[in-house]
């Protein structure tokens, strides 16, 4: 395949970059005024089925080895960061609920977030403080980073495994909200219990 000068530049910039790049960053490095996206999609198509693939993760692009070759390439490599079970669960809770406060994480896990859990995830560059919740105490809330998406091969948070099913099943709602929903549902089914339910809520 012969490429235009612009496409060659985009390819070279991505190849030489030290990390994932946004189209704007690529344009700046390649000194291109035109839109980069068509080149990126053309390149991604071109690399489909090759040993290397061009992928987009959270709006940033990078080259990586093809995922289906992992069975061969994996064996000589050491496991990256081994996370504790607590850290894995905490990361999952942040990713699926973000932004989320520490108290909310603790409510789901039923235990305090141990020291060394959030800081391990922050040190890995997977989570970041993302402002404060405007409730009494103004707790800090946490969210995932673009590096999280890159590391786990997610184009966006919508690609989190099973997130749509969990949302549809209400499993990402806080328990109070879930209870309310259930009550209003049962209200529809049975008007008579209405008063009693409201009493219980109070």
């Amino acid at each position, binding site marked *: 395949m012969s490429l235009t000068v612009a496409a060659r530049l985009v390819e070279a910039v991505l190849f*030489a970059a*030290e990390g994932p790049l946004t189209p704007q960053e690529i344009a700046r490095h390649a000194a291109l005024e035109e839109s980069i996206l068509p080149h990126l999609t053309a390149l991604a198509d071109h690399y489909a089925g090759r040993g290397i693939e061009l992928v987009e993760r959270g709006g940033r692009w990078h080259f990586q080895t093809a995922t289906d070759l992992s069975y061969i*390439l994996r064996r000589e490599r050491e496991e*990256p960061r081994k996370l504790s079970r607590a850290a894995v669960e905490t990361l*999952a809770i942040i990713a699926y609920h973000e932004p989320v406060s520490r108290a909310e994480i603790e409510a789901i896990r039923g235990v305090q977030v141990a020291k060394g859990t959030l800081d391990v995830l922050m040190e890995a560059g997977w989570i970041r403080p993302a402002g404060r919740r405007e409730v009494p105490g103004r707790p800090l809330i946490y969210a995932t980073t673009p590096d999280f998406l890159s590391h786990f091969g997610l184009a966006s948070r919508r690609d989190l495994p099973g997130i749509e099913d969990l949302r549809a099943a209400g499993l990402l709602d806080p*328990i109070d909200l*879930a209870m309310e929903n259930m009550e209003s549902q049962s209200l529809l089914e049975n008007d008579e219990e209405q008063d009693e339910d409201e009493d219980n809520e109070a």
Partner: protein
Amino acid sequence: MTGETPIQEKLDLDVDALLGDSDWAEPVRRVPGEAVLTVSTEGWEGPLDLLLALARTQKVDLREISILALVEQYLRFIEEAVELRLELAADYLVMAAWLAYLKSGLLLPKEAQPDPSPEELALRLHLRLQRLEAMREAGARLMGRDRIGRDVFVRPAPEGLHRPKSIVWQASLFELIQAYGQVKARTAPRIHVVARRPVMTLDEAIERVSRLLGMEIDWTDLSRFLPETADPVLRRSALASSFVAALELAKQGRVELRQEAIFAPLYLKPASLGAPA
């Protein structure tokens, strides 16, 4: 759990079945020669975790789980643990008390039920378990994805791109807040710190080394002069003080020092006759 097996076997069975996950490091430790089991509560991350593990043994969809049966399982587990003198953290017992309350509520006739209704409490517990289970599964699926550095690889040493600025300073947010934490920790008032730290002063060390030295005639390793202690902090302090004491005594001509190589053991001997005592 069948009624026939002795209680200890039953518990072993449960524990093993519950702890099939290899991530959970040795939750059960058997002390040799003793009938006491220690269930490290680190095996479960709190009562909710244990409840979820128990719920899994019902082998039904978590949505169909019987809360009453689960409560009974938990209470039986705690009871057996107590009988076997297993160590359980307080929050497990708090949960047990709460579940016992829930159970009695669930068994009451409907008119006599307290407010809020036990059904509602049971439903809440149910929802909590489902949420924890969902996140646990989500975490496992996340970890199983094709991860950079394990399954897929990026270029390990890219050339890097030309940047407009000549020097690029690097620091991460984590480093920033970690640094602030350390500044605060360093400069926070320290009141009860010194008293808690077991140390051996130089004077004590000089006194101890010269006293013990009187009982030795041959070259003796410095470590032999240290007080016996299991406290690593005190041990380090004693080592440092005794080392300085040895240097001081050598300066005074009361001891001779010998060391074969850097970091090799340091040997002491009372100074030979003729030297000032």
